[in-house]
């Protein structure tokens, strides 16, 4: 089974990376480096694909962020839940798909399936590498936004289906959730769907993270920085 490199030396050396089917929750306060961390973990390495469900940034911004992180944009797809509300006429391409709003779970589910199908069929990008099943990293750049629009129970059921599908296709999922805006019940319910939790906090302008649920990786707080898609654990 395929193993996804995290790009973080301490994790990859200890556990080899993320097993296929791993779903990772990043619990982080606002204004932390959670987005950058999530994109660094989602950035496809050669032979892989990335799909980002963007609920708080336009597709163009996500693509730019991945470009800065050093990702090959040919292998990066975005399901944009923002742009369509202001530009109803915008049309889908194989790598950029649009849903009317973050409330549209029907549309999000369909676009996700369509994009995965395109990847499996080998029609996503030139220069397909031929790995099968194709390794897919998936990121939801904010569950928090989805929770603003939909009830917890509904979203839980939806994410339950989504995370299960990701396991079936042997992908890896990264989900950001703002841990300061929601109560313990919400956090605990969302955690149930995950195999690994990365907690992020900021102290004196220094980012710290703690990883739970990854065998062989100690659960201590570690200082880190993210630059150009590279996560560095600081001494």
């Amino acid at each position: 089974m395929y193993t996804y490199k995290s790009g973080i030396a301490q994790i990859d050396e200890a556990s080899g990376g993320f097993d296929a089917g791993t779903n990772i929750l990043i619990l982080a306060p606002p204004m932390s480096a959670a987005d950058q961390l999530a994109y660094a973990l989602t950035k496809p390495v050669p032979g892989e694909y990335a799909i980002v469900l963007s609920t708080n940034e336009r597709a163009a911004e996500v693509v730019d962020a991945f470009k800065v992180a050093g990702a090959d944009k040919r292998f990066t797809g975005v399901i944009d839940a923002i742009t369509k509300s202001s530009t109803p006429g915008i049309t889908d391409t194989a790598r950029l798909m649009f849903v009317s709003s973050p409330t549209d779970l029907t549309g999000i589910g369909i676009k996700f399936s369509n994009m995965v199908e395109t990847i499996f069929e080998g029609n996503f990008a030139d220069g397909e590498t031929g790995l099968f099943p194709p390794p897919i990293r998936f990121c939801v750049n904010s569950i928090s936004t989805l929770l603003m629009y939909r009830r917890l129970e509904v979203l839980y059921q939806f994410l339950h289906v989504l995370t299960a599908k990701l396991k079936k296709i042997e992908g890896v999922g990264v989900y950001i959730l703002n841990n300061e805006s929601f109560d313990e019940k919400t956090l605990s319910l969302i955690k149930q769907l995950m195999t690994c939790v990365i907690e992020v906090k900021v102290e004196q302008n220094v980012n710290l993270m703690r990883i739970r649920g990854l065998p062989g990786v100690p659960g201590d707080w570690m200082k880190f920085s993210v630059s150009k898609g590279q996560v560095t654990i600081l001494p």
Partner: protein
Amino acid sequence: MISTGINGLDEMLGSGIPEGSRVLYSLEPGVDGQLFMISTLSCALAKKRSCLVVLPNTTVDAFRNDVLAMYGPRPDLALVPVTFFDSVDWERIQKGSKSPEGRARELQARIRKLCREQDVDVVFVYFDLLNEEFGTDAATAIFTSVQEMEREKKITLVIEHLNLEGQQLLDHVIRDLNFDLVLAIRSSFRPFPQFNYFTIVHISWADLPVRSVPFIIGEGRIIPYIPRIVVTGPASSGKSTFVLNAADDGHSVDRRAQEGGMTTVALDFGWIRWKDFDITLFGTPGQERFDSLLPSYLGHAMGALLIIDATNADQLPRARLLIEMIARRRIPFAVAVNKSDLPGTLDPRLIRRTLAIGDEIPLYQISATRKSDVNFVLESLVDSITQFRY
């Protein structure tokens, strides 16, 4: 009757949906099944029905653009006036009423007013957000109460819903909310290939078994799909002729046999668009040496056809053996007695007796060279497949 916009489905339902019905299109997450509702809407508009579309999750422009982008131009939707209640209207109600009860009352009043003013025949509801806001029962009641208040008008209600609760919700809708048609649109979601299918879970106006039919989306429409019908029979009974005559596009792999005639060495393939169904025919070789392959061919078949030569009684023991192999699969099958236009054909009663098949198995006397005969057999077999009680 109101057409679903999918001929194959209409046939199964007995020519469509009766006026005044309650219909649920239940979508499993991730399944591209939105075209079911859009096809029904498009068809209703083409028949000059007055339609109200309730879409609290999006604006009219975004909806029209989505339909255009996903399924191509639908002239009916672009040209015929449609009444919409969209996300802007829904936000207005949300801001206007603080309590859910107040919002439900206001929404119901608004829907009733629109139905009266526009003399609405069919109401199409994107149910997802309303279900979340009011719960399934109360959200459904908003529309069914309008149906009841305007009983003489026989307003038809068609709901599309993202079903996150699975069978439990379907059971509830059938048992407690008196829906007339419940169609579940599902997906295998295997890693690859992924295939979609619809299941007629419940129908109130006909005695139809729960039936699942795969579908594909092509040319902007839903095409029910029968991925495999196996055509088998003894050697030289006319299987290749049948498959090639049935198919819009077919391929035979016949080669010259040692005995002098032509024989199939692998499989004949035929692709047919029949009554809106896409069908693939697999014609097997007839010789016994290929029998070990037959269970694999029958493995995922939705139906089978046994072809025998009406002029050759020596084939019957072999045909009986093949019937036993088909019968183990418990799939609908029929027998086509080919070359029935030639002199010296066998008596059908003798054939039934020798093959040990009862009257429940259809037996057709045909000539595989006549397209009309081939079409008749196919039509009957497709009917059997869609009606078969597994």
